């Protein structure tokens, strides 16, 4: 790669226009990609901020969940076995939806609850309030976790997309466009040089013709001078004349 890097094309006018069109295309592409990259980076920063907020809240919520679990264990005894053994179908399910941001597909998870509360009657005889509280805190934590999962997947996808886009932008900016510009400069140079060569040749030929014409005139004048003494109006007799000058156009 250097300033001399260019595409090898035959320097003709048609190629010149072709190169110029390509350059224009590359420049348009570059500005569009730059816009895409900016949009993605904006969304990236926004997602990052949301992730940080979510994680700060998450720390406290998880602590609260474990504490409320300890409280429930205190009042209701060991409910872990009841909970585990009663687990049948999933009550909370996750749906995938796809968002489109500047051409990048981002996955989004939404949670919805299905079915009734299987654990409605757990702790009925003992410690029911703490069990309910634990359920609520855990549900909140679950919501947060699903949100965090969405944010993190989009974060990673965005990161990849931004890297790719930026690579392309830089590629166009620092490789493709200089190459095209160099090619165009070279073709223009070659064409100019050819023009100059042509011009020079033409000039040279003209000079040569002038010279030849001048020589012929001189010759004719000499011949005319000699012939004037002899028969000036006798037409030229091919058979008699030895010297037959060429006819010049």
């Amino acid at each position, binding site marked *: 790669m250097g300033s001399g890097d260019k595409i090898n094309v035959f320097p003709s006018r048609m190629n010149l226009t072709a190169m110029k069109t390509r350059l224009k295309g590359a420049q348009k592409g570059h500005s569009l990609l730059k816009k895409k990259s900016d949009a993605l980076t904006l969304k990236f920063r926004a997602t990052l901020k949301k992730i940080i907020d979510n994680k700060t809240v998450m720390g406290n919520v998880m*602590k609260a969940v*474990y*504490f409320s679990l*300890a*409280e429930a*264990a*205190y*009042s209701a005894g060991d409910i872990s*076995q*009841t909970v585990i*053994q*009663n*687990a*049948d179908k999933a009550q909370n399910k996750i749906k995938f939806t796809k968002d489109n941001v500047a051409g990048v597909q981002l996955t989004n998870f939404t949670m919805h609850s299905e079915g009734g509360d299987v654990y*409605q*009657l*757990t*702790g*009925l*005889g*003992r*410690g*029911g*309030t*703490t069990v*309910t509280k634990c359920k609520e805190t855990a549900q909140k934590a679950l919501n947060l976790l699903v949100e965090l999962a969405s944010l993190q997947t989009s974060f990673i996808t965005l990161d990849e997309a931004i890297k790719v886009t930026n690579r392309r932008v830089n590629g166009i900016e620092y490789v493709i466009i200089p190459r095209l510009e160099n090619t165009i400069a070279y073709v223009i140079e070659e064409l100019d040089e050819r023009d100059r060569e042509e011009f020079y040749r033409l000039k040279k030929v003209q000079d040569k013709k002038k010279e030849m014409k001048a020589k012929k005139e001189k010759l004719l004048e000499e011949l005319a001078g000699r012939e004037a003494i002899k028969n000036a109006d006798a037409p030229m007799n091919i058979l008699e004349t030895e010297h037959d000058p060429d006819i010049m156009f």
Partner: protein
Amino acid sequence: RVAITAGNIDNGYFEGLVRGFRSGILRRTDYHNLVECETIDDLKLHLQGTDYGPLLANDPAPIIVQTIDERLKERLVHEFTHIRNQCFQPLALFLDYMTYGYMIDNIILLITGTLRNRPIAELLPRCHPLGQFEELSTISIAQTPAELFNCVMVDTPLAPFFSECVSDENDLDEMNIEILRNKLYKAYLEDFYSFCEKLGGVTAEVMCPILAFEADRRAITITINSFRTDLLKDDIENLFPKCGRLYPEGLKFLKNAEDKDEVRRILERYGNYGHLFAGVGDGPNDKTLEDRFFEEEVKLCMLAFEQQFHFGVFYAFVKLKEQENRNIVWIAECIAQKNKAKIESYIPIF
């Protein structure tokens, strides 16, 4: 009727044993020391200085709260079975009655597991050790609760409780497992109560108030917890044990209650339970009703030890030990989670 001297011949050794265990229960100063600990290892160190001694000596650091819970439970089971294995009738029957509650929990656990097709080998270790009985492992052959009753339960001491709960065996299949649990427990409490009454003497004097309180406590808890569920009022009434002070009028009013304030008003009129609501609320510094129940239970159990030559001391001892285990595990959890805000919520016994 157990006369003072005659009682000592059969049960004196065991009563002495239980009183010895009771004096090993942690004092307030011990609890203060535990609360001051910053890590679980500190806690272990302090426990070594008490009657618990080498409880956690064989566990490698770092110790998790679950290990503490397991060791405490093991110790209680060990002490209980030691007494149970050596004692005579009718103390043996009394101690058996105490284990029926745990048996009910175990059966419910196994039924739920079997209904969801879990392998029996996975479920058996999770049963409470005090609730073991021979037919426990044969539960897996039953596919439905009805079959369960016919094949397995009929031979166990819990058979009469089942037949009280369900008139028709097909009911068992449809009943929600939690409802079944509470119905069994109600039948058990009422049976236990009449057994104590029949024993008479000091035992009846001591045990009947304790069991009456337990019955009322269950009724109140079920009422309050059913506010947020879809249970019908008649179903709820079927879960109330009849051996408490609230029977029959208090229970009738309780079943129709709609919220906590109404419950409070009912309790202030019937059964002298108004004092339970002192200091109860939903704020961060208030006690919960559950805490007050635990406190009342501890109080009644401590009173049991004031009299001699009766069986109530055994019941009281197990309940107090359980409360102590809960306390220690609670303190350990607060320390482990670095959340000492509510560490003082344990119930001091002495």
